[in-house]
Structures are given as structure tokens and as C-alpha cells.
């Protein structure tokens, strides 16, 4: 577990699911307010959260992509047209001018939480 961010006011964190529900190297989608957030747990046990909307395929599918890496940078590949995005920065590797939104994510009392604030 890497990212525990304490500077956020507690109230903006939204529960996603218990950590144990996340398969390593696989994503899930959470509804946070009106926003769809794709949450990933990698095999190194780091957590990442990015927007679920694929700007190329124009559909909410990022959470269903395959997780991998470019060098040391973790990435996800959209299942629609196979664009790949950095999980750390959201940047699209094929089209660097396009990026997914990146959100804060943490584990609190065994519960994965996301903040879109």
C-alpha cells in the first residue's frame, strides 16, 4: 500500500470496496458522485484511480482494460481501441496531448477510498 494522503478533508473520501475485493492487476469501476472512476490494484500492491471514460472509444470502459507497464511506469490499455494510458499521470502514450483524469486513492480501515475533490 503506497498512497495514503492525509491532506484531504475526511469528508471528500468515498468508499469503493474492501481492499480484498480488488484482484491484483485488474480494475473495477466506482460511482463517485456522478463520476465513473476506474480503480486499479497492481501486483506490486499499489492503488491507482483514473477516469473510466475512454476519450477515444467514447465509452465508459477503462476499468475493464488490461494492466501492464512501460519501463517502470504502470499503465492500462483501453479494451476498445487499445490506447494505453499511464496510471500515474493519466497520459496517453500514443497521443500524449490526451490524458485521463487522475484521482486520489487510499486504503482506510481496510476500505479502498477515492476522492474526486
Amino acid at each position, binding site marked *: 500500500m503506497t498512497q495514503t494522503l492525509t491532506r484531504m478533508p475526511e469528508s471528500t473520501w*468515498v*468508499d*469503493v*470496496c474492501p481492499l480484498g*475485493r480488488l*484482484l*491484483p*492487476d*485488474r480494475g*473495477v*469501476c*466506482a*460511482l463517485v458522485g456522478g463520476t*465513473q472512476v476506474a*480503480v486499479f490494484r*497492481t*501486483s*506490486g500492491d499499489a492503488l491507482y484511480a483514473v477516469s473510466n*471514460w475512454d476519450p477515444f*472509444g*467514447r*465509452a*465508459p*470502459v477503462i476499468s*475493464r*482494460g*488490461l*494492466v*501492464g*507497464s*512501460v*519501463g*517502470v511506469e*504502470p*499503465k492500462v*490499455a483501453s*479494451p*476498445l481501441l*487499445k490506447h*494505453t494510458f499511464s496510471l500515474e499521470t493519466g497520459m496517453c502514450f500514443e497521443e500524449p496531448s490526451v490524458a485521463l483524469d487522475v484521482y486520489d486513492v487510499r486504503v482506510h480501515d481496510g476500505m479502498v477510498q477515492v476522492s474526486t475533490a
Partner: protein
Amino acid sequence: MRTLVVVGHGMVAHHLIETMRDRRLLRRWRVVVFGEEPRRAYDRVALSSLFADLEPADLTLDRDVAATEASGVEIVSGDAVVSIDRDARTVATASGREVAYDAAVLATGSYPFVPPVPGTDLPGVFTYRTVDDVDAMKAWAARPGVDRGAVLGGGLLGLEAAQALLSLGLETAVVEFAPRLMPQQVDEGGGAVLAGLVSALGPTVHTGAATEEIVAGGDGCVASLRLSDGSAVDAGMVVVAAGIRPRDGLARSAGLEIADRGGVVVDAGCTTSDPCVYAIGECAHAAGRTWGLVAPGYRMAEVVADRLAGGDATFAAVELNTKLKLLGVDVASIGSVQSATHPPGAEELTYADPLSGVYKKLVLSADGTRLHGAVLVGDATGYGALCQMLAGTMPVPERPESLILPGGDDGATIGVTSLADEAVICSCHGVTKAMLCTAIDGGAICEIGELKAATKAATGCGGCAPLVADVLHAELDAAGIERTDAMCEHFEHSRQELFDIVRTEGIATFADLLARHGHGRGCEVCRPAVASIFASLGVASHVLDGEHAALQDTNDHFLANIQKDGTYSVVPRIPGGEIAPEKLIVLGEVARDFGLYTKITGGQRVDLFGARVDQLPAIWQRLIDAGFESGHAYAKALRTVKSCVGSTWCRYGVQDSVTLAIDIELRYRGLRAPHKIKGAVAGCTRDCSEAKIKDFGVIATDAGWSLYVCGNGGMVPRVATLFAEDLDRDTLLTYLDRFLMFYVRTADRLERTATWFAKRPGGIEELRRILVDDELGICSQLEAEMERHVDSYRCEWRAALEDPSTAARFVSFVNAPDAVDPEVVFVPERGQIRPARPEERFLSGPTVEVELS
């Protein structure tokens, strides 16, 4: 915009068009091409492969007709130019078209020379130049009673024709007027070894023999040849391959200057005696002679393209180096071959081993530092290096004899690193070492296929392919990049190597494989590839078991096909396309109850579209309860085995194709493979189920079943190749077991059987040796692996529904399992749903009730 008229659409004309396109000249020139043959330019050099298992379409040079047309080139096939009016600057064609030109290019090639021997006009006498010639030869050879053939001419073309006759199953004789075979390419010693090698392969060889007459039989068709020594050669079919003559007739009647021995005279800029008319390729007399090979023709095309661009490129004499494989025998000839043409003082070094059929000769300067020529028969390794030495771009080794002695230095050890940058590696396309290195750019290109595409090297005659690969490897080594067929940055192995590693080391998890043989975390390329390997080998009992779930792409992960809007489609298996009314009704009911769009697929089954992730388990529960199972439309696996109604109903059917299709589909259902596999069974030769464009196709015969393999429809259609005929059901299944497992073991990722087959040099014969004669001794393993697959098959959807944790994954939102995805918006069309277009999404709101009539 000016107009260029090109007369002839052969290899050289097409190279001109491509060069003009590459040089962006098509913006300035409208190009109209007239070809007399009924098809677009094709690879004439590879014509003989039509006697093996290629189809004319495989040879086409214009792979992207739409792009050619879009670029402003009009190609008219089957319409010959019959006259040129040079004053009016127009050409007229056989069909009556007249086109005005600003410049014209003659690229009319050659015609086969037929010597003035009585009887050449008899039925059964052929020449060998075009696809139509091949068709005519095949048709004649199939006539009853035609079991012997003769070839008039023992040169390059004659030996190709001999090979063709052999492959048509004829006993074959070759008659050559000169005292040896391939008189132009080899010397006396080489010719003797060559004759030995050729006769050992089947054809009888008559050298130093003139044909005095081609004699007809009682039916008026060709029956034999009478030779000058008085002997006779029986032949129900004769191919005249006695040389070629430039097709200069059109130029002659247009009053252009013609050389004494034929050919349209051109200057260094390939311009004829009329400054508006160029001539290129085999019809041209350039740099003092005509050129009967494709490479010099390509150079001329490039010169003309440059001239049309306003440049001043010139054509200069080139070396006519050739390397051929005729009847399986390597023959190469480089530079000066006959002693009469050697420069003064040249020395010959010869090595001959008639027993093993190898002959090699080097022609060197007296001090041994310059190469003037070489002949290689029986073993042509070192050809590429010798060409470089001839051009002076690679040094001749200190002990040149090591180049031809067995176990010596074949030039490879000198290494491409010692090649000069300006060394021409691919002479067909004029690609130098420097051009290759620029493209490779320290590792920007790591794969031979990409390098070929980027530079065109090795896409002509292919003779330079090994050298191109050597340059690539040397450059990658220098850049510290290791393998070229690496799957991705995480594995330096090809799929086949990973398959063997997993199989022999018994690796069962991706993490273990990565730890032992890879780096990093994997990616969307290697994960599904390894998942497929695990599934093919039965390592995972279910594709979603444990860690395997993280390897599957979204289709395999949700056991359904993702659609453009993120919803999924559901395809239950309908084996052989046969479905009972009750089940058809269930499909209708399920579609109605879940509001799914319903369509009959091109694979003879029904697809239900528009399911949200969270609906999939309930949909499948209904389907499984009604007796359906997964159709694996989402997987790289067996898809469908299409059938026709066959002998059960059809008045022409000779076997029960439906039963066999169902049996085959159920046998191989769920078999994961490098790519999808499609099959079909037809009840007679009419082939209503399109078995000949499937990965495997079975067609009923009176005596059993014929098996066709390695075809597909899709992007690059390929007609399947006949593997075996008149099989009984058990033998058919045995061959299919072996074939499919062998493909699963050896193909690259995402390689359909047709692509896999095209890359296997040995063709169908080799496949038969491996899968029928068991040359590699692996058939029993292949069968056992297939047996294991058949025995362990379970429906993935049934298993998924039985496992509560798997079913729980099918939610749109992990923190709101009951919420419906608001982004999924449908609108009605023809009484069903379809995904809303972007502009419709906001108008229609999140849910639309679909009225079903």
C-alpha cells in the same frame, strides 16, 4: 495537370507507379495505365509458385487497389494499346479508347521466343510467360493420357518450366541446344554438376541437342519431339522456353528507333528517339543491350520517375547477378562467368564435388584482391557476400579459397559490419546498407517485417533477405538490443518459444513465468498471449481462475464481446448452425426479456447485443437452463463450424455434412489458439458452407471427405489448400487433431492459419510430411494434447455461474452493484435497440423504453 500514359502493366510499369507515388509525383501527373493482360501487375518472377499452392491473387503487386485509385492512377486491364500517334500525342487501344498524353512510357516487356521449328503451332505446345499460360498448361496436363512433357530450352526459364511439369505429375524431359544447362549463368563445370543434380530429381536431360520437329499424334495434338541426333522424345505436352524477345512492335510501327537485334533504343535517361516517349524494362535497349531481369528494369523505372520530376538520373549497366532455386537446386552466378569475358590476367579457383553435387568457382584478379565473378551450383551460401565483393564494397579475404572450400569461410564470418555504407544490399529496390541502418535507427525498427515495409528491401526477388537480416541483427547488437522476434518489452521470446517454455518447464502462473523469463509487469500484448498458452495447455482449469483472471482481455474476462458503447454481445454456440425451434424460441424470449438487439451472424448463429455487464450472468443462466453453452465468440478459440444441409435434404449432397460439422464443432469447442479458428463442412463440391475459405474446411466426395487447410475470408482472403482427399471420418479427425494442435504450438500471436502457413517455407508438402508421415515424430503427442483438451472441456459460462465469486464480478459499479450504468443509452431502430450516437445521447436521456412489436 499533365497526363502520363503507361503502355503495359507489368512488373516494371508497376514499379514506376509506386516510385512516382513515393516521390509524390502523382499530384503533378495524372497517370493512365493500359495493360493487355486481364489482370493487374503481378509478380511474374514468382509465376512458378502457381504450380505449388499460391493463387494468382497472391502474386498481385497492387495490394491496395483503392489507394492506387485514390492517388489518381487509372489502371485499365485487358485493353492493349494498338497504336501511338506521336504527332498528335495520343494512344489508341483495342477497345477503341483514345487518350492524349504529355509523356508516354513503353513498358511492354518481352514475348517468348519460339524457334522456327515445324509443329510449334500444334495443340499442346505452350509458352510460359503469363498467368493465363499457367492456367492453359494446368488444363492441358489434366487431360487424360497426358503423362509426359518436354521442355524446349534448358535455361533459367526452361528449368522453371520443367519444375512446373513435374509438379503437374508429368514425366519430364529437358532439351537444350547448348552443350550444358543454363548456358548463360554457369560455365562448363557448373553445367555438368547441374545436369547431374537435375536428372537425379526426375527430368531427363538432353544437352547439345536441337529439336528438328514437334510431331503430332493421331489426334492432331503434340505427341513427340524429333531431335537432331535422330532420337525421339515422347511428350503429350511441350513448353517452349527458348528465350525472350523484346516487345517492340508498337514502337516500331510508331517509327521509334529500334536496335538491330530488337529493343526500343533509349538513352541514359531512358528516353526513346522521341523526347516525349520513354521505354523501360525488358522492351528497352538501354546501355547497349536489353535486360532480361527485373532489377535493371526497376532501375530504369526509377530513372524515368526522376526525369518526370525534372531530375537528370541516368541508367548505367548493372551486374546481372542471379541466385535461383530451381528444382530445389541452388544456382548462383555473379559477374563474369565465361572465361571469354574475364578481364585479362584473371585467375579461376574451382572446387567441385560431383558426388554431393556441389560446384563453386571464383574468378579473381591475379593478386587475389579483386573478385570478377563466381559460379555456385548446389550450394549458394555466401552469395550475398560475394556480390558485395564484386561491387568492391566488401574486401576479398586473404585466403579467397576459404570462400568456396567446404567448412570454409562463407563470407558470413567477415560480417556485415565490414560492409561499406554505400553497399547495395537489395539490388531489386536499390537499398544500401546506409538506408537500412537509417531505417533501423538504433532500434526504432527491431523486426525484419517492419524493416522490409519501411525500405522495401527483400520484397523483390528475396535473394537479399539473409543479408538484410544480418544487417538488422548487427545494428541491434550494436545498439545493445537483443532479440528481434521478442513478443514485447516484457519477454524477449516469441510466442512459440514461450509456449515451449511453459510446456516443458511446467510453469503455471504468469508471475512465475515473468520472474523466470521476463521483466516488468507485462502488458496488453503478453498477458493475453500467455493466457492463451495456459488455456491451450490446460494449465488453468478455468480462464477466470485466480491470477489468470488478470491476464484476460475484457472479452475473455467477461466471457462476452465488448461493443463500441461498452456493452456486450452474447453468442451461444449453435453447433453446425443447426437449431431446433424450441431453442430458437428461447433465444427470442431471452432477447425480448432483456431488451437485446438480435441479429443472425455471418457465422450461422444468433448474436444478442446490448447487454450490460451486470445483465450477463442472468442472461446466461436462462440460456444454460435451456441447454445452450458458451459460443466462445469472445475468445481466440474455435468459433464456428459452418455446415450446409448436405445429403439429408439436398438433392446434390453426397455425405451428411451437418452431423460431421456438429461433431467437429463439439470436438474442438473451447480450444484456445493463437487466433480464432473457423471451420466448415460441405456436402458436395458446390461448397455452400464456404469450406474453402476456412482455417479448415471439409468437403464431401463420393469416397469420403477432402480436407482443406489454412484458408480464411476477412481482410486478406486466402483460398485453403487441399491437404488430403477421400478420407474416412476417423482419419479426417486424426489429421484435424494434429493440424490444429501443431498450429496452436507453433504459430505466432494473433496469426491466423493462412498467415502462419505463408511463413512456413516448406508449404503443404512439409505439413503433410509432419502431420501425415510423422517426420518429426510428434504426431502422438499432438493427438494426446488434443485428447486432453476434448476430455477436459467444460462450458466456461456454466462454470462461471457455479462459482459465486466469479458471478459477483459482473457489476457495473463495485460500490453500487444495483446501479444501472447511466452512460449506456439506446435508441430504437426497426423495432430493436441500437447504441445512441453522441449527438443523440443528450436528447434521449438515460433510458429509453423500446417498443417491441
